């Protein structure tokens, strides 16, 4: 940044406009790449946009707070968009009513798998207790997950990161995995994405079909409720990593 660019950068980087625009550009660039690649799952637009923006922040020495000052206008729309999920839900009301029992059974199975696998695998890899607690609600939509994390003694901001990574992960390889397992039923594909990968999975399922999207939205909402009720009970004394006292982390720094 020399000559005239220095003051220009100082001015631009102080306005919300810069990072707001760059977020839109990164996402649209990601979408362009995704289509050019013949919709290769690894080039998921959310993933590319996040990676590009992280690199841009690092390269320009910008902190997250400055970035979020601009990006919060996009972030804000998450609320209204979540409310709007009532539309696909309503559209598929007949399908959902018919599949009531299967929905409850697969929700319970998926919700417990999500919690147990997150905690179990992280422990297997020697994760500290605070990391286990932060990872436990990772399949739930961000605001619920952060609330649960705080309640059970995790780090809410670390939980937010695990939630987003879980969502992106599911969006990237969920379709491929379900194809391999021969899960072709649209309602089952939607349930899987909604339970495991919350809103980001739901957004992906909506791109497959209306009914997959509706089941995903329903699964996301139900799994949020169920996990919020289950985890504080499960994480009570002795639930997470307490059996091996020696492996417990010395406590949050």
């Amino acid at each position: 940044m020399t000559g005239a660019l220095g003051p220009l950068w100082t001015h631009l980087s102080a306005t919300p406009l810069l990072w707001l625009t760059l977020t839109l550009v990164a996402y649209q660039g990601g979408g362009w790449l995704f289509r050019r690649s013949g919709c290769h799952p690894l080039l998921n637009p959310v993933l590319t946009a996040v990676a590009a923006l992280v690199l841009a922040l690092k390269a320009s020495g910008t902190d997250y707070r400055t970035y979020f000052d601009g990006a919060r206008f996009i972030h804000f729309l998450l609320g209204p968009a979540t409310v709007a999920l009532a539309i696909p839900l309503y559209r598929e009301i007949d399908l959902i009513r018919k599949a009531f029992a299967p929905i409850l059974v697969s929700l319970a199975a998926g919700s417990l798998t999500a919690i147990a696998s997150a905690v179990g695998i992280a422990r297997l890899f020697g994760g500290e207790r605070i990391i286990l607690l932060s990872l436990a609600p990772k399949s739930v939509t961000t605001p619920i997950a952060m609330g649960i994390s705080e309640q059970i003694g995790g780090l809410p901001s670390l939980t937010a990161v695990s939630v987003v990574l879980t969502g992106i992960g599911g969006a990237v390889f969920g379709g491929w995995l379900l194809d391999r397992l021969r899960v072709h039923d649209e309602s089952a594909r939607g349930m899987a994405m909604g339970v495991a990968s919350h809103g980001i999975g739901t957004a992906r399922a909506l791109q497959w079909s209306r009914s997959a999207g509706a089941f995903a939205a329903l699964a996301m909402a139900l799994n949020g409720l169920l996990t919020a009720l289950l985890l504080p009970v499960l994480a009570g004394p002795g639930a997470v990593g307490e059996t091996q006292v020696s492996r417990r982390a010395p406590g949050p720094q």
Partner: protein
Amino acid sequence: MGYLTLILICQLLGEIVARLARLPVPGPVIGMVILFCGLLLRRGIPEGLETSGGYLLRILPMLFVPAGVGIVTHLDVLRRSWAAFGGAVVVGTALTIAVTGLVMQLAVRHRAKTAPADTA
């Protein structure tokens, strides 16, 4: 425009209910339930709502980008325990998708086989 207002009102009501009832559920999720109940009562989706809501849903993936970029604030933790973190996220998510999808598909098929009279 009117329907965007309606969506925001549902969200606002959701926030109020969540606070007053001290529910562990965020306002927008309750707002979704409120809008859903409204649609049930009205027995149909107004065209304008279809347009504004449809637009929000089309850009939904993008709305997660700002939160995702929050990863920059935790790069040190990720570097320290990347195996625990990555393993839980990748393997855990794959397991959850597999279990939920397979159980749902089995249950749906089982139901279709055992209770065909249901639909008649």
